């Protein structure tokens, strides 16, 4: 078992080294006819490939057996500490963490000492925490969370703490960070909006960012040409977004899955090209400048105050979006969306109006994108087509996917992680997309339900009334 795992890992590493050889090792300067040989990269690939393959094999094995994590493992009770440790070592997550630790320890000659020390520390800490949890704390944590669940106070307390944190946040950090947070929250709304179309209704939309652009340009143009106020444009942006959502939804009603994906991708690219090339209206790559920030009954605000104000506006919008999406999810139309997602033919056979359901899914998704687009334009005070490329659509889609399709809480977490992580981890900034791409693939294979799985509403039969005896 172990021997074959290691043999497979060696083969995988060699194969990867072969695959990446011309791109990782060779670098050609075609202007000066020079070739640079970067042999150190070969060592990187071999070494990382070996460990990646080990991790892959462990996870794959685990996926096949599908043992639920952290189940009340009866085998753990009444065993001595040493035996419990042996059982814990078979846990896939513990194994993966062990591999990660070994990987970082072995990196010693290849990376800077600072990076080495930190990565080793983090890996060790996570491993220790996981082991401690497995060995000693499982029961305690579980009983604790059971108490939390039963107590009627826990929910209000949680919300109160969250609320205070949200209100306190802009006053505790400088306006640069508030500004980043605003952007992250904008993507939360985008994620929630796309969640309606993709997560609930199952209509893959690869050009979602176009609706965002519609909102942003609505405000940008109306404000700079006609001096219209932010507060008038906010609903207008949403409405025009909705209009475009229905407009684009109409021709593609009959299409399914893959055709839908490519056509929506096409729409996104058309939107981008029109924004770039119709310079008379949209000012091309220069974009629109000097857009007003949102006003508050004509109050004068400096930059920091305006940022804080925008922050609270977005927070309100996020809360509104969560509220509406949550209500929609359980409504008649929300259940129609989910039925459509599960099986279109059966859904139509049950008498659900397919056209109306699909169009409304597009319309709701586009509405939120349009609305938040207005805020985006107001936050940036200048917009240009480069904020609305396919890459942005891919970000929003990966937010929805990583968060767990259909799950509201998961989408919020994923959006915050995806938007804030590159800001605070500048070092890995340029590897960001590499990591996201890989995570999207791994997520689909090993955890298709996302970070936080969407919990479906279940109904329990509790016996008919009057039968208690």
């Amino acid at each position, binding site marked *: 078992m172990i021997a074959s795992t290691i043999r497979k890992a060696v083969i995988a590493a060699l194969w990867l080294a072969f695959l990446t050889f011309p791109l990782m090792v060779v670098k050609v300067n075609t202007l000066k006819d020079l070739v640079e040989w970067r042999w150190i990269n070969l060592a990187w690939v071999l070494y990382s490939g070996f460990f990646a393959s080990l991790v892959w094999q462990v996870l794959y094995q685990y996926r096949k057996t599908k043992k639920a994590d952290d189940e009340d493992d009866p085998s753990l009770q009444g065993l001595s500490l040493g035996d419990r440790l042996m059982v814990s070592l078979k846990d896939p997550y513990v194994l993966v963490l062990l591999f990660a630790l070994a990987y970082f320890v072995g990196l010693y000659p290849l990376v800077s000492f600072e990076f080495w020390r930190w990565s080793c520390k983090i890996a060790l800490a996570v491993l220790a925490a996981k082991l401690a949890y497995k060995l000693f704390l499982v029961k305690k944590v579980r009983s604790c969370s059971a108490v939390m669940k039963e107590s009627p106070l826990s929910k209000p307390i949680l919300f109160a703490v969250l609320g205070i944190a949200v209100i306190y946040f802009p006053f505790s950090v400088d306006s640069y960070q508030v500004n980043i947070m605003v952007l992250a929250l904008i993507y939360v709304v985008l994620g929630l909006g796309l969640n309606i179309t993709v997560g609930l209704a199952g209509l893959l939309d690869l050009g979602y960012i176009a609706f965002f652009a519609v909102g942003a340009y609505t405000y940008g143009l109306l404000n700079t040409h006609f001096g219209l106020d932010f507060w008038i444009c906010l609903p207008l942006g949403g409405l025009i977004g909705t209009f475009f959502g229905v407009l684009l939804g109409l021709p593609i009603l009959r299409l399914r899955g893959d*055709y839908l994906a490519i056509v929506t991708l096409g729409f996104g690219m058309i939107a981008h090209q029109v924004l770039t090339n119709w310079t008379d209206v949209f000012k091309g790559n220069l974009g629109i400048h000097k857009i007003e920030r949102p006003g508050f009954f004509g109050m004068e605000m400096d930059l920091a105050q305006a940022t804080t104000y925008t922050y609270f506006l977005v927070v309100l919008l996020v809360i509104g979006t969560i509220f509406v999406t949550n209500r929609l999810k359980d409504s008649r139309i929300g259940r129609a969306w989910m039925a459509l997602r599960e099986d279109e033919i059966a859904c139509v056979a049950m008498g659900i109006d397919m056209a109306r359901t699909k169009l409304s899914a597009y319309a709701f998704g586009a509405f939120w994108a349009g609305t938040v687009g207005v805020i985006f334009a107001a936050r940036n005070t200048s917009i240009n087509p480069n904020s609305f490329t396919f890459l942005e659509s891919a970000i929003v889609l990966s937010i929805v996917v990583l968060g767990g399709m259909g799950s509201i809480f998961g989408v919020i977490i994923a959006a915050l992680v995806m938007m804030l992580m590159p800001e605070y981890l500048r070092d890995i900034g340029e590897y960001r997309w590499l990591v996201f791409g890989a995570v*999207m693939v791994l997520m689909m294979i090993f955890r298709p339900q996302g970070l936080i799985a969407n919990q479906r509403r279940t109904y329990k039969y509790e016996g008919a009334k009057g039968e208690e005896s």
Partner: protein
Amino acid sequence: MSFLDFDWEYFLLLFAGGLVKGSIYALIALGYTMVYGIIQLINFAHGEIYMIGAFVALMVSGVLTIYGFSGVSILVLAAIVAMIYAAAYGFTLERIAYRPLRGAPRLSPLISAIGMSLFLQNYVMLSQTPDFLRFPSLIPDFAFMEPIAHIINSVEVVILGTTVITMLGLTYLIKFTKVGKAMRATQQDMTMARLVGINSDRVISMTFVIGSVLAAIGGVLIASRLEQINFMIGFLAGVKAFTAAVLGGIGNIPGAVLGGLVLGLTESMAAGYISSAYEDVFAFGLLVLILTFRPAGLLGKAVKQKV
């Protein structure tokens, strides 16, 4: 404007340009359509394979130039290595990103494919450069092309010739070889094909390999025409080629070729006679139009959904 006033030379120029563009689209579209025909998956990362093919060819030609090889020998060697590598990438791609997802909901492999596409793009960007690299013009100018070189030059003739030969080869492979027969059988009914002893996993791998080789050929050809490449060329080409495949009716091999040519000619004509700024708008506009009126594409058969 009377008939004689019509600028035929300009028209022919556009027509030749469209034909060349279309044949490249067709080469890439074949990969999409073959994969889709068998496992109903949009291999979103197919465009990336084409880009990697072009990059490998560039590396090989760079190294060979320094070691004193010249002209046609570089072209042939670079193309062969590029094809081998593209095949290896296609094979690995299927093993890592798609095979574990067989039988998963339809969206899962598609998202996995998008992730793979992002991954490969950034892998090339980080390991090489985000800038455009000059691609050496490996195809020589033929003397006999001199008189018509202002309409169609020798690079374009080579592209057209190679495409035609490749298509003939592919037709032979699919119609008359054992592999081709197995592929057609798997496309028609995978369960049944398995029952009669066809190793469907191997057939799927073969499909990816063949599609990737075609994409690499396309990549080398287009790179020697445009004479510059960067890590993003795969994305747009992939999207366009997929559009071509859908236009022709996805899963249908002659359809992919037809779709590629129609798309290339449309783009070329629209750019020449209307506006070159909106090339993509016309391409996708055509796609939406055709899908609205013929949802199964030009040559595709409408498949009834059964419950």
